[in-house]
């Protein structure tokens, strides 16, 4: 492992009974870099995300995270309070279904401000201003700050989830198919937003997707998984333009051209 990686994993293995979900997977993520993990359903992408973020323990292998002070932490050996704190501040998790990550009974402003309040912010005016700022950044009308998420469309909910996650300026964001289930134009807008925010805020991200086009648009590097094994990894353009492994070739050639 080099000095500079933000997140690294070595020989991650996990089986659900006899089904291998991860087979000796290695991951490296550098600061400010977006890594896409692609593969068909059941390839182990989401499992990998959960193991990397400490939500699921591997059967074997280690995940290391480098904190802002440069210290390495073994994610699965960390104490629960520290891991929870990490999830609330330095890390973010964007779910495919935004309703899982939002409080549907709390206003948009409250949702965005929650992580700030969890970190000790105690000035109502400042919290509200930060919430307004972020709603604007994710292109949600500032008038909606006191509206409940129940009144938001799917695309707006996803953008609200992103605002809620990024408000504490995390250095690392895990995204599980953030554009899944959205129609094409909404998806395009969301991808554009993610790309802008990630590059401006220099966020590192692990993006799980089954959509190659999303990976090509957003990611610097790509990892292709098949049945728990990483079959190919490299720079996105290189891998997608010149796929070496048969499975990658299959994936690339299967993409429908609009």
């Amino acid at each position, binding site marked *: 492992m080099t000095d500079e990686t933000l997140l690294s994993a070595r020989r991650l293995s996990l089986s659900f009974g006899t089904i291998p979900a991860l087979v000796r997977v290695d991951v490296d993520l550098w600061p400010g870099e977006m890594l896409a993990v692609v593969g068909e359903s059941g390839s182990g992408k989401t499992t990998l995300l959960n193991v990397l973020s400490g939500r699921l323990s591997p059967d074997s292998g280690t995940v290391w995270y480098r904190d802002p002070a440069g210290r390495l932490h073994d994610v699965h050996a960390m104490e629960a*309070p520290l891991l929870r704190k990490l999830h609330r501040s330095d890390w973010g998790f964007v779910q495919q279904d935004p309703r899982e990550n939002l409080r549907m009974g709390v206003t948009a402003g409250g949702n965005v401000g929650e992580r700030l*309040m*969890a970190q000790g912010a105690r*000035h*109502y005016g400042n919290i509200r201003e930060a919430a307004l700022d972020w709603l604007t950044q994710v292109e949600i009308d500032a008038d909606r700050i006191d509206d409940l998420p129940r009144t938001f469309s799917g695309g707006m909910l996803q953008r609200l989830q992103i605002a809620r996650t990024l408000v504490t300026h995390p250095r690392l964001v895990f995204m599980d198919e953030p554009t899944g289930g959205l129609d094409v134009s909404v998806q395009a807008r969301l991808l554009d937003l993610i790309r802008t925010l990630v590059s401006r805020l220099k966020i590192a991200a692990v993006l799980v997707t089954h959509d190659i086009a999303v990976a090509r648009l957003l990611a610097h590097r790509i990892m292709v998984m098949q049945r728990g094994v990483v079959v190919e990894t490299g720079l996105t353009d290189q891998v997608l333009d010149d796929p070496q492994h048969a499975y990658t070739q299959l994936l690339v050639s299967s993409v429908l051209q609009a």
Partner: protein
Amino acid sequence: MRGYNFAYLDEQTKRMIRRALLKAVAIPGYQIPFGSREMPLPYGWGTGGIQVTASVLGPDDVLKVIDQGADDTTNAVSIRRFFARTAGVRTTTRTTEATLIQTRHRIPETPLREDQIIVYQVPQPEPLYRLEASRAETRRMHALAEYGVMHVKLYEDIARFGQVAISYDYPVMVNRRYLMAPSPIPAFDNPKLHRMPALQLFGAGREKRIYAVPPYTDVRSLDFEDHPFRAGRAPRACGLCGAVDSYLDEVVIDDRGQRLFVCSDTDYCAERRAAGHVGAEGLAEAAE
């Protein structure tokens, strides 16, 4: 009273409760589980408070029992008589005379002293109860001091109503560490919790939890820097004694909508009237 141990509970039970109380005092604001016993009244009628009182009561104590500030309501009278009969202790309605005060939902207006103990009856000991349904999760939140969700609730109130809309059982931070539900006392009483010279004990019989605030402990009501906590009260004077600094009950006195505001603390009002203070209603009555 024949056939019953002193203060009704057996010695082993009282010892168990006192052990829980010691733990509670050692960790201010933290809820300690205890083996709540079957009491001669159902849950919701003050069994937690009664068990705590029974465990700390001694033969030389002077007991006062109040219900929403009044000594003369049915339940306050019942509980006071219960202890008079099972413990033979002196009872009183005067706050200054009492060494042990059991209360439902009010703190007496008269400041308490170091040699006094106040026991609160608590219906719901968990301050996060309405925000987080899972008790396992709230226990984790208390352990990790993750109270952001409570501030979200306050934020929502201010966004919706312009001010925090919690009027009783207003959540407090005890000793800058644990979030505590002070029992359904009016928000007006919250400032009295802070650095009170008396020992404060809280008992929840149905929920089987005990917690405590030792004397002179920091107790601060949650708020925002730019929306500080305000102790609300009706902007009136007591109709009987004229007090403008006590918590008032609003009483409807006829079917034309006439209201009378009187001190909720009956002892405080009686003392003031005995000292010669007269309120507007008192004057009207005298004139008749």
